[in-house]
């Protein structure tokens, strides 16, 4: 973007919003918004402490396990749905339903089924991420060039080889797009799980800071969370660009 003939660096809008935040905070309009400078000072003081690192590792573990399950189950299921009309007819209504369902409302049910521990949090995370991953893998497979499938078949590929040598790679650009959106949804899932199921990890920190009106702490943790989610999502976007050279020519 250019302004008055000057080329603005990437993300310069963030600087503007940071300024607005600082001004609103300094004006002391509401306790809910402390000045950004105060939040950043709090951030540096909080970030190395034992409770913070413990929360980070708890959240990271649940997040990683939940995303891994969503990817490992979601991608094959999506590919199978794209390949087989029967499986597609059977599963598609459910996938669409869960994609738009208010999953938060299901969390109490998960607590009854799987208890109050880590397991329920991981399952919540998976449930937030998996549906869009399935749908994107399915969409990726549906647009595969027919003759690529015929090629694999005519050169003697068995179904398993066709699966991981052709379908997976041909659908990879869409699959990565789905994983990227799924990961962003999983961030929501893991925090909601940690707030509702058992108060651990970042969920516990949010709960603690909000209940004690420690808004600077609250925002500091939120910034850390945003930064983590943003990095993961940008990394996946980078992978997507790596395969985009063939996305147009399949």
């Amino acid at each position, binding site marked *: 973007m250019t302004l008055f003939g000057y080329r603005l660096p990437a993300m310069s809008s963030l600087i503007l919003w940071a300024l607005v935040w600082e001004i609103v905070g300094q004006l002391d309009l509401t306790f809910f918004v402390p000045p950004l400078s105060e939040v950043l000072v709090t951030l540096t003081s909080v970030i190395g402490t034992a409770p913070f690192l413990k929360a980070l590792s708890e959240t990271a573990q649940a997040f990683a396990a939940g995303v891994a399950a969503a990817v490992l189950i979601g991608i094959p299921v999506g590919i199978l749905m794209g390949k087989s009309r029967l499986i597609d007819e059977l599963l598609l209504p459910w996938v669409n339903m869960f994609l738009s369902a208010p999953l938060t409302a299901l969390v109490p049910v998960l607590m009854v089924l799987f208890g109050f521990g880590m397991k329920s949090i991981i399952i919540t995370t998976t449930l937030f991420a998996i549906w869009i991953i399935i749908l994107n893998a399915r969409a990726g497979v549906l647009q595969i060039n027919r*003759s690529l499938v*015929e*090629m694999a078949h005519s050169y*003697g590929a068995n179904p398993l080889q066709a699966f991981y040598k052709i379908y997976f790679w041909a659908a990879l650009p869409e699959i990565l797009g789905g994983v990227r959106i799924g990961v962003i949804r999983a961030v929501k899932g893991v925090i909601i799980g940690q707030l509702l199921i058992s108060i651990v990890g970042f969920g516990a920190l949010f709960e603690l800071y909000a209940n004690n009106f420690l808004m600077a702490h609250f925002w500091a943790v939120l910034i850390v969370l945003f930064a983590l989610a943003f990095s993961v999502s940008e990394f996946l976007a980078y992978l997507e660009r790596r395969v985009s*050279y063939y996305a147009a*020519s399949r």
Partner: protein
Amino acid sequence: MVMPQIKEAVNVTDMPQSDNAVVARKVSKTYGDVEALRELSLEFPRGQLTSLLGPSGCGKTTLLKIIAGLLKPNSGEIEVNGKPVTGPGPDRAFVFQDFALMPWANVLRNVAFGLELRGVAKSEREAVAEKYIAEVGLAGFEKSYPHQLSGGMRQRVGLARALSVDADVLLMDEPFSAVDEQTRRKFQEDLLNLVQHENKTFIFVTHSIEEAVYVSDQIAILLPRPSRVSEIIRPTDLRHKNVDNIRRDPEYLDIVDSIWASLRSYVE
């Protein structure tokens, strides 16, 4: 050498057991209500190039895919080397109209893909692939990706892939229709060389009359809806002539004209 065409014709009728690599017997195929092929029978002599020629929608690609084992006929059967076809097999290799290359794999892996599926060790299959990449004139492009190549070069990759599995029968589905005219002519010359030097049977689908007459030992003209063989033409004489002169040879022009005469009524 008096009247060699007739001599050739006598040979065919004299030897009904002549060596055919592929035989189609009363093959019928319907898509829902549409009858694509009706009781089509055709023989493909070993070591020769047979063209399937006809207007679009005449089922020539359907027949080719049935021979490849990619489609199942409703009735009738295909024999390759005397054995009935039940599915794709290592005795046949397919060259696709739209090349069907894996865009995420480089030329070397694309060409070696048939051998990769058969579980041939990496070093061995890459050696074979490199040999055929050089043979189709793409040496130096082993590490290139399909999107970096021109249409003609991509089809050379498709051809090298089909050659590297060393199948007896090469099935080519309008292989040159997606490349430009100059490249196409070069391809046709290369194909003639290939038929001469590789001991393989070629089945070649095309909708170009000139192309069929130029490259074929035998041309089967298919008429559409439902498709059947209306005529078999063997331009035997042309095969002994210099490739540079075929296109102005009177016999070549006569055959092109007569095929056009029988097809023109089917072109709307």
